């Protein structure tokens, strides 16, 4: 088992006390799904909410003074940072999957028809929003910790406001192809674009965080 996978498992164990908060947060977005009646703003809203939980692992580590544990484990500082990014990414993908399923159920109950393209665009927007916000948050949390760096936890509010204010009425049927690059007018291409954007954002953010954490003394 690679060190990064071991660290993902450690982060999973750290978050155990917070599982109930995740469930509450996921189900708290259900009324918003009924309000939006569209998958894209619903997922953008939900993923912004989920991005706000990225400080939980830092919070548990700080509360339990785990720096000594990290200092004792046979893993490098770079692995510790990469493990945290990997874990945050997994949370994002699991949350998107749950949100898509929940949206499909809610929209079916609300008798709103939904196309495959809308689902793909919803997933794509969710990926971009989540990876963008967490890519901004994580270096700040590595640098300042969850207490001093709590300002970074509120970055996703931008997404919550955007979803509420401007995306409420976005439906695939209302939009005409608007990207100058023809390939981006395909939902499939947009999904691939979203994943690649997420990878690039995490690549840059990971490099910054590793430099920050490497300089830190535990």
């Amino acid at each position: 088992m690679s060190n990064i996978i071991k660290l993902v498992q450690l982060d999973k164990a750290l978050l155990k006390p917070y599982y109930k908060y995740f469930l509450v947060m996921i189900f708290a977005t259900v009324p918003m799904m009924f309000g939006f009646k569209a998958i894209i703003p619903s997922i953008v809203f939900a993923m912004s909410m989920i991005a706000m939980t990225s400080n939980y692992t830092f919070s548990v580590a700080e509360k339990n003074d785990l720096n000594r544990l990290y200092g004792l484990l046979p893993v490098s500082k770079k692995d510790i940072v990469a493990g945290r990014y990997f874990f945050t990414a997994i949370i994002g993908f699991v949350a998107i999957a749950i949100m898509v399923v929940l949206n499909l159920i809610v929209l079916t109950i609300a008798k709103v028809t939904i196309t495959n393209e809308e689902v793909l665009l919803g997933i794509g927007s969710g990926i971009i929003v989540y990876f963008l916000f967490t890519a901004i948050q994580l270096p700040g949390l590595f640098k300042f910790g969850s207490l001093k760096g709590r300002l970074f936890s509120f970055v996703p509010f931008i997404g919550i406001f955007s979803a509420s204010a401007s995306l409420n009425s976005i439906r695939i049927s209302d939009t005409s192809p608007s990207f100058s690059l023809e390939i981006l007018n395909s939902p499939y291409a947009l999904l691939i674009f979203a994943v690649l954007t997420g990878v690039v954002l995490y690549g840059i953010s990971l490099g910054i965080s590793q430099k920050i954490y490497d300089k830190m003394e535990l």
Partner: protein
Amino acid sequence: MINAIEINNLCKKYDSFALENISFSLPKGYIMGLIGPNGAGKTTTIKLMLNMLKKTAGDIKILGLDSVADQNKIKEIIGAVFDANYFVQDWTVKEVDKTIGIFYSNWDSEKFKTMIQRFGLDLNKKVKELSRGMQMKLMVACAFSHDAKLLILDEPTSGLDPVARDELTDLLSEFIEDGEKSVLFSTHITSDLDKIADYITFISNGNLFYTGTKDEFVDGFKIVKGGNKDITAEQEKKIIGIRKYSTGFEGLIKSSDIRNFGKLECEAASIDEIIVFTSKGGKDNE
């Protein structure tokens, strides 16, 4: 033979404190006490050994491996016990086994469970529900479970009752039984060291004051006592640390200087007295 610990000219500089030119070694199969007053640099030395801090200069070798280049290999073969536990308070003892065990290639879960049973710990109890003594035993169980070759203890007995301290010292004696394992034991409670330490390294104000065998350390100093008028200015210069009363004085001297205090009463010094008097006088034995 490879030493368990080999430290040469270790330096760490902060704005307000500096650890300077610390050198000591611990042969395999022995217990070394790392002593010194609060803020002397003991924890800094331990954190540098664990590569939790970046050294300013010097070399640290643990079981022949470089503390920076081979840090992962080193951490596979060392265990640590601190004054407070380093696990998540909400984990159960069973979860400690499951979560920490995956990091060590030679983790023996059965051995962990045997140790837990031997220590009277409950696998389903949360870490936060354990007493300080039990938490210390949990850290020791982890060290035993991945077959650590070197155990590093940083103030593990502070806040423990005498029974728990006695149990720990017995465990440490058992740990080094095979002659291949070693212990570095930083503590304020020097009576623990009287019982089990083979070597002593004494750090005072960031400087190495002594490193060597415990017997030489204790034999190397004497307590000299007398009335106020019994001591001359020349003799006072030879005293490492002095405590004056209205009726007299007592001070720490090197055993080699005993001839200079002919008529005065001299007696053996305890490790505690050596620490107290050296921090009062602050003179280096160099």
